[in-house]
């Protein structure tokens, strides 16, 4: 076991800051640590050996564990060994000396620390399973300093008593996967403890010593239980979004006020970015600053390192990679991997992406906004934007499982079209790094000594409005360019020969986007948008991004919710009464009655009568908007732009043009 610990300590993929572009993706700390010589290691080894001997003598001769002197001595040993472990670990990851040298030292340290805890928290001799009392404490201590591989973590878990393990596991599962609140997860732990006691009680004798210690060792609350299983290793970073200009700030330190400038000539945003909160800790009142709009972003390289350790994933990905590197000769396409899109992807060297000795995977990215409260909070429109990635290289049967879905982040706000490139920009840059240099995984099931992995985003899957916003294109209500896929003008919308569609060109789109970005005022930006229908998009940070071949039309929304619904409702008249966006599209010279249902004839008659009898504008008050609309049309009043046609405006115009007659 302890040999494996040593192996884990530095052979595993190391923390998040390592994915800058160094040759093997190793952390930059190399340059900073002082170089350690072999003599230093030798002396360190001897020093530790002496302490270990002293510790073992102490343990063998313990009379009373509770005596203050014993406790003090144990504590001193603990401080020494834990400190040495941290120091050695630091050396192991930062010096040029080979790993093997450090293995033995770390091995002995691990043994010692384990024994220390066993002594401190009691272990009956001869018991096979470590007593429940040590369940949380051993794991928390050991795994907080290492980053264990899944298999090692699980083999540790295997040593514990199965019943207490399951009892600790259940509230964690219900909290993480289900909707159980923290308070009730704590209650559940208490209830499970009662259940255990009741199950193990044998008549008047009560519980055996073994069972009593197992029950005592159960975690007391959800947080402790979660720590036991925290070998899940989810690494997230906290970022901050400015509430006003919606720019994303990478951590870990945030300025107190937003210092971003939209334009070179504009002033600094200066919106408060963080707030300080005081909290009590061990009797003291401390304060910390928290971002006002925080954002949790999951770290993709660490996620990938753990993801690849799953059984069979790596083989599947390699098979897909080989498959996508070849041409697809069959007529029939059954999956994304059979299409042309993946075969046109290129690597950073310009060659086909999937032809490489590194592991290369294709992903699809998606973003959508939703209300996390199901609209329960009346009137409050909270919006969360969820951005996730699916791995196309996996077969469909496995692709959609939650352990294979990478959730990038959940934005706490819905940025406006002008701000969204600056909110997502930093995130996209990190995703681009994964294509350019990828991540060096120090150990995978197929390659125990490590391999490089690079990922590319093959396409963007969203519904049309969301997708247009993310790509910086105009939505269907733009005056000229209403289509996200081509440059057809709105006046030619009835063209149905696809060969007549003027298609977009990637270069032109990028040029227009750059013009938008480099414009020096919001007005200039709006002018560019009016003319070209393009804004800058965060996706241009991906160097391989080609919106003409990477953006999809979601068939679910388009064909089923769009065409099928339109045909049934408007063409066939099924359910038309409930269709509140009833458009008068039959005769195009007539205005569109957006947002309300056509008035009935009785209502119209009443409205006309009122108009005839009215002596002043005020007598027209109370007439409904749809009636006003029809009456205005009859009177020949210009009825666009639709947005300005509020009830007062309609009433005034109607009165002015007809009422005075």
């Amino acid at each position, binding site marked *: 076991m302890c040999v494996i610990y040593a192996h884990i300590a530095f052979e595993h993929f190391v923390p998040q800051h390592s994915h800058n572009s160094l040759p093997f993706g190793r952390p930059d700390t190399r340059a900073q640590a002082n170089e350690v010589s072999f003599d230093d290691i030798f002396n360190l080894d001897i020093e530790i050996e002496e302490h270990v001997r002293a510790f073992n003598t102490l343990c063998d001769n313990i009379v009373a564990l509770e005596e203050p002197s014993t406790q003090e001595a144990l504590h001193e040993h603990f401080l020494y060994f834990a400190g040495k472990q941290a120091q050695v670990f630091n050396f192991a990851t930062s010096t040029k000396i080979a790993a093997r040298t450090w293995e033995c030292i770390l091995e002995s340290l691990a043994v010692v620390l384990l024994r220390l805890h066993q002594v401190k928290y009691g272990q009956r001799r001869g018991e096979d399973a470590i007593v429940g009392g040590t369940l949380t404490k051993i794991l928390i201590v050991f795994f907080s300093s290492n980053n264990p591989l899944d298999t090692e973590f699980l083999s540790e878990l295997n040593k514990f008593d199965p019943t207490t393990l399951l009892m600790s596991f259940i509230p964690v599962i219900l909290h993480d996967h289900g909707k159980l609140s923290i308070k009730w997860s704590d209650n559940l732990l208490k209830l499970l403890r009662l259940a255990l006691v009741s199950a193990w009680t044998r008549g008047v004798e009560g519980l055996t010593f073994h069972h009593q210690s197992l029950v005592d060792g159960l975690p007391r609350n959800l947080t402790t239980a979660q720590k036991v299983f925290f070998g899940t290793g989810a690494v997230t970073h906290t970022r901050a979004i400015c509430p006003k200009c919606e720019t994303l700030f990478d951590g870990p330190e945030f300025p107190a006020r937003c210092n971003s400038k939209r334009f070179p000539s504009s002033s600094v945003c200066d919106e408060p970015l963080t707030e300080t909160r005081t909290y009590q800790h061990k009797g003291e009142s401390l304060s910390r600053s928290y971002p006002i709009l925080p954002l949790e972003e999951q770290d993709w390289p660490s996620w990938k390192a753990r993801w690849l350790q799953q059984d069979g994933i790596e083989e599947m990905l390699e098979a897909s990679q080989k498959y996508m590197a070849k041409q697809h000769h069959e007529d029939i396409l059954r999956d994304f991997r059979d299409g042309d899109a993946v075969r046109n992807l290129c690597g950073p060297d310009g060659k086909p992406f999937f032809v490489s000795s590194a592991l290369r995977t294709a992903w699809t990215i998606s973003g959508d906004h939703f209300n996390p409260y199901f609209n329960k909070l009346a009137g409050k*429109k909270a919006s969360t934007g969820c951005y996730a990635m699916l791995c196309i290289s996996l077969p469909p049967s496995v692709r959609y499982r939650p352990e294979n879905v990478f959730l990038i982040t959940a934005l706490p706000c819905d940025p406006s079209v002008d701000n969204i490139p600056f909110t997502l920009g930093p995130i996209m840059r990190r995703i681009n790094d994964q294509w350019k240099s990828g991540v060096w995984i120090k150990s995978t099931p197929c390659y125990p000594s490590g391999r490089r992995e690079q990922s590319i985003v093959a396409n963007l899957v969203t519904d049309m409005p969301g997708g247009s916003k993310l790509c910086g294109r105009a939505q269907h209500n733009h005056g000229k360019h209403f289509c996200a896929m081509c440059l057809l003008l709105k006046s030619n919308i009835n063209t149905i020969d696809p060969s007549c569609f003027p298609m977009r060109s990637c270069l032109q789109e990028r040029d227009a986007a750059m013009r938008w970005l480099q414009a020096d005022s919001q007005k200039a930006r709006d002018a560019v948008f009016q003319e070209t229908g393009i804004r800058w998009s965060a996706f241009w940070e991906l160097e391989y991004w080609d919106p003409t071949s990477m953006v999809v039309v979601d068939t679910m929304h388009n064909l089923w919710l769009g065409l099928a619904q339109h045909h049934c409702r408007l063409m066939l008249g099924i359910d038309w009464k409930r269709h509140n966006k009833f458009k008068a599209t039959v005769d195009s010279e007539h205005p569109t009655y957006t947002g309300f249902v056509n008035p009935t004839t009785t209502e119209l008659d009443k409205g006309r009568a009122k108009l005839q009898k009215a002596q002043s504008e005020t007598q027209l008050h109370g007439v409904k908007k749809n009636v006003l609309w029809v009456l205005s049309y009859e009177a020949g009043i210009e009825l666009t732009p639709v947005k300005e046609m509020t009830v007062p405006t309609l009433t005034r115009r109607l009165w002015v043009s007809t009422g005075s007659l």
Partner: protein
Amino acid sequence: MPSNEVIGSELVDLCMDETQQRRSRPIRDALTKEECRFLQNSIRTTVRPPSHRAPPSNLGDEGHGKLKADQWRSLLEFDVPVALAQLWSKESQSETVAAEVAERKEKMLTATMYLSIAIELGTSFSTSRKKAEQYTEYMIKYLQLLLHLYPSMALTANQHTALHVGPLLPHFGPAPGWWMFPFERLIGALQKVNHNYQRGQHSFFVDLLIKPTNHLPKASSR
């Protein structure tokens, strides 16, 4: 059974006089009340496997709520074409119906069939270049027929975008590989995942979402 009315009675309310007919939306090819009942009956009596959710059998009446995407799809996939084929085919229309009206209705039936076939081709689980071409062909036929029946109609953005789906099929593979269903499911799952909003406490997450909406009343502890 097809009735003698040209326009259903509830639509008469909508378009009384000539001028009003021009301005509002005369759905001349709409289903009459009786035809609607026939469709509802057909939906109710169709035997479906459990995996296929039926559209509401009171379709068109009050109270059935919004339909989901797969319900619209199953309407177009089977229920509506089969019901219309019994109502609006040339042979099944009664002689008292004006020839022009009968012809329009038959053309509408053809349009429905075209749309149904196009949608199936576009969303099938396997595709090929031929299938993608067939999809575009049927979609063009459908839109052409619609424009023929309503010459002054302007196509919607969705209908135009549907013509772009054809080239995407050989490019990305069959539609189920790149539609929104998995992400919609993920969002559904996320909505159920615990996000520690505790009733009665002004939690951190509430601050996260409510504070930015400064113009709305602040979330008070309940």
